[in-house]
């Protein structure tokens, strides 16, 4: 095994850690096999040790009432638009809201393709939308979902 390849593997692990899933695709394809070899044992152990420490530092769960507090910042809804609702619903995973994985992760990319934000806000509504009202509609939906446990949410999702 060439020293150069081991050194490159060390650089990758020093940068991205011991989980090849975190590596860029090109490096993963080129070095994943070497990573598992005996020659790379020391590099692997070193990177795994640091990853282990990092993974032990769990972030606390978001406060249950954070969604409510966010909601409180908005004016009650006058009307709803399904497309806008979908848009807001798709944001939920990024806020870490519980039980809100109702829209596939790929939906976000799709949103960009159909002209997110300005497009949805204006083109999809028959009548002028009140931004605050749509936001509240979204967050109210979230509050309902947040009250479901994961199993219930999964069942609802499947429906």
């Amino acid at each position, binding site marked *: 095994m060439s020293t150069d390849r081991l050194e490159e593997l060390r650089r990758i692990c020093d940068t991205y850690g011991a989980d090849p899933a*975190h590596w860029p695709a090109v490096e993963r394809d080129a070095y994943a096999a070497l990573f598992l070899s005996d020659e790379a044992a020391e590099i692997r152990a070193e990177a795994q040790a640091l990853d282990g420490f990092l993974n032990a530092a769990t*972030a606390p769960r*978001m406060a249950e009432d954070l969604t409510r507090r966010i909601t409180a910042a908005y004016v009650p809804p006058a009307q709803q638009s399904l497309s806008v609702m979908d848009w807001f619903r798709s944001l939920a995973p990024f806020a870490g809201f519980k039980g809100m994985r109702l829209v596939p992760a790929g939906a976000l990319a799709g949103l960009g393709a159909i002209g997110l934000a300005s497009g949805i806000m204006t083109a999809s509504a028959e009548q002028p939308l009140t931004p605050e009202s749509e936001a509240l509609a979204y967050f109210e939906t979230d509050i309902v979902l947040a009250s479901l446990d994961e199993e219930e949410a999964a069942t609802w999702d499947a429906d």
Partner: protein
Amino acid sequence: MIYAASYRMLQSRDAAEDATQETFLRLWRNAAKWKPRGAKFETWLYRVAMNYCLDQLRKSKREAPEEAAPGGLDGRADSADRQDQKLFLSEQRFAIDEALGQLPERQRLAITLCHYQELSNIEAAEVMKISVDALESLLARGRRSLREKLAPMREHLMGKMDDEQTTHVN
């Protein structure tokens, strides 16, 4: 995800909640102005949140790190071993939080985005508005620094494992 990333950066639950709220308020205020221009929405949202976090860090020096959520505490009396294990885990988390908190902001942000939020190097570089090479440099320096800061803990851990093995043998 926004909350978790904000917590990693600010190391305070209250501050992370404020960051999450502020991110969504800014999102709403600016949603109509947002144009895809090839950027993913996720990247944009992270950028809003992380910029807010960096602003907060710059405004006031970091608060003392909070202890992570004590998941699993149920009020029952624990055995001495379990209490010892909890104490050790708590110390470990504290040390890691502290080590992360001592990193320069941009190194911490790079590790938060790539390791914890599992963004690709290209996405993380977009959030930070830097090149992939610059991101890799931040990641490598950040991880090297963490390894050095956490070396005593690793030695402690290895020593503890040795002690346990000795106990089992005896």
